């Protein structure tokens, strides 16, 4: 057959595409369960890390049920929506909805007899998305742990938000002031004062990412005020 003819060219292209497409479809389908499992375990690992349970990704799914007792999806008024599985909520999609149409997931965990409230976060950094979890103590005010991550912040600068030196600063900070008004916890450029219970040190050279974290924490926690104050 003439290899420069149009028929040959079309035939070759069609056969090639069918082979490649079926090969890729097979690979993607057969690896999908493993990939979904990785994402699920990582989520559990992140949630556990905020209440000080550091486990590997593989252990996370085994230990998860020992600690996390309730996973609730909340209406904006703080009441529980029983029809939604909180763990399966995709926060990146929820935040795009109107405030009163969103579901607000919250995880209740128990460790050494104390109850903790873990709130997932989602926001924007300098280049792309930020997300994380913040765990509140039984008083629903004091932060006991925070975990942040990012899609593509600058390595060495904004990307440091997922390092423990940054995350651990949030421990012991309070989100409500003494008059029980919501003030959140902000990353302060140039360093927070030593006695500031609502501020942590921002990252030098990573101001926009730090501001993104502050905004994310404030915006997300703000939605949980009815829940945190009522229960």
């Amino acid at each position, binding site marked *: 057959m003439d290899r420069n003819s149009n028929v040959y*060219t079309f035939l070759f*292209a069609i056969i*090639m595409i069918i082979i490649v497409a079926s090969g890729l479809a097979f690979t*993607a389908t057969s690896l999908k369960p*493993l990939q979904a499992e990785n994402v699920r375990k*990582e989520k559990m690992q992140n949630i556990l890390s905020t209440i000080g349970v550091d486990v590997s*990704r593989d252990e996370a799914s085994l230990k998860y049920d020992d600690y996390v007792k309730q996973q609730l999806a909340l209406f904006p008024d703080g009441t529980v929506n029983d029809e939604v599985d909180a763990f399966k909520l995709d926060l990146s999609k929820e935040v795009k909805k109107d405030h009163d149409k969103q579901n607000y997931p919250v995880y209740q965990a128990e460790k050494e007899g104390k109850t903790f409230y873990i709130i997932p976060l989602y926001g924007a950094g300098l280049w792309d998305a930020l997300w994380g979890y913040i765990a509140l103590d039984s008083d629903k005010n004091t932060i006991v742990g925070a975990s942040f991550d990012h899609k593509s912040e600058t390595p060495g600068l904004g990307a440091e938000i997922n390092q423990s*030196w940054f995350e651990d600063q949030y421990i012991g900070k309070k989100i409500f002031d003494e008059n029980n008004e919501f003030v959140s916890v902000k990353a302060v450029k140039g360093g927070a004062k030593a006695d500031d219970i609502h501020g942590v040190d921002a990252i030098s*050279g990573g101001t926009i990412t730090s501001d993104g974290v502050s905004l994310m924490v404030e915006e997300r926690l703000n939605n949980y005020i009815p829940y945190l104050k009522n229960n």
Partner: protein
Amino acid sequence: MAVENEGLFSKQNRSLLIDPLDDNNPITVQVLGICSALAITVQLKPAIVMALAVLFVLVFSNVIVSLLRNLIPNRIRIIVQLLIVASLVIVVDQVLKAYAYDVSKELSVFVGLIITNCIIMGRLEAFAMANGPWKAFLDGVGNAAGYGFILIVVAFFRELLGSGKLMGYEVLGHKAKTVAESTGLYQFGYENNGFMLLSPMALITVGVIIWLQRSKNRKLIEN
């Protein structure tokens, strides 16, 4: 006319493997594949994985294209090459996500960008389309090794000088908040050079490597 029976590792075949490491290095001599060399050399580990991923993609695409070289219609050859490279890259990406999740998160978008790595398309078009599979295999291994070698050297210096670590281990000591609490070099007031973490320094590091290489290897110097 007698057909010369060439050994598997004849002198010519050996040079296919060795040339790209020095005389014909894809990064420092041909200056191809620079984009990924800038992007993923901040730390050693992703650089090594990237080098392996490129090795896999380049070797397989070279061999596949070489096997099909007499069948591929000339008019759509670039598209066919791209199709082969793209599918191999997707396989790498999917396998990493399933079996090496942490690494795949670090490399993120750059695995997908292997598709646009000029070294790969360059080798397919310049070599695999005109040579047999064994030669194409050697050429693929050689070029991927030449690429990976430079990547790893650049990443070594960037991670060491930029964050004081190698493969994530703090080889220069621990940097605490104050000089007094720090250990290793940091207790003498040593500071990491944050500039090493930014892309311009990757370019400068590659430039220094090119300079060193040419001062050793005189035949690379253009008039």
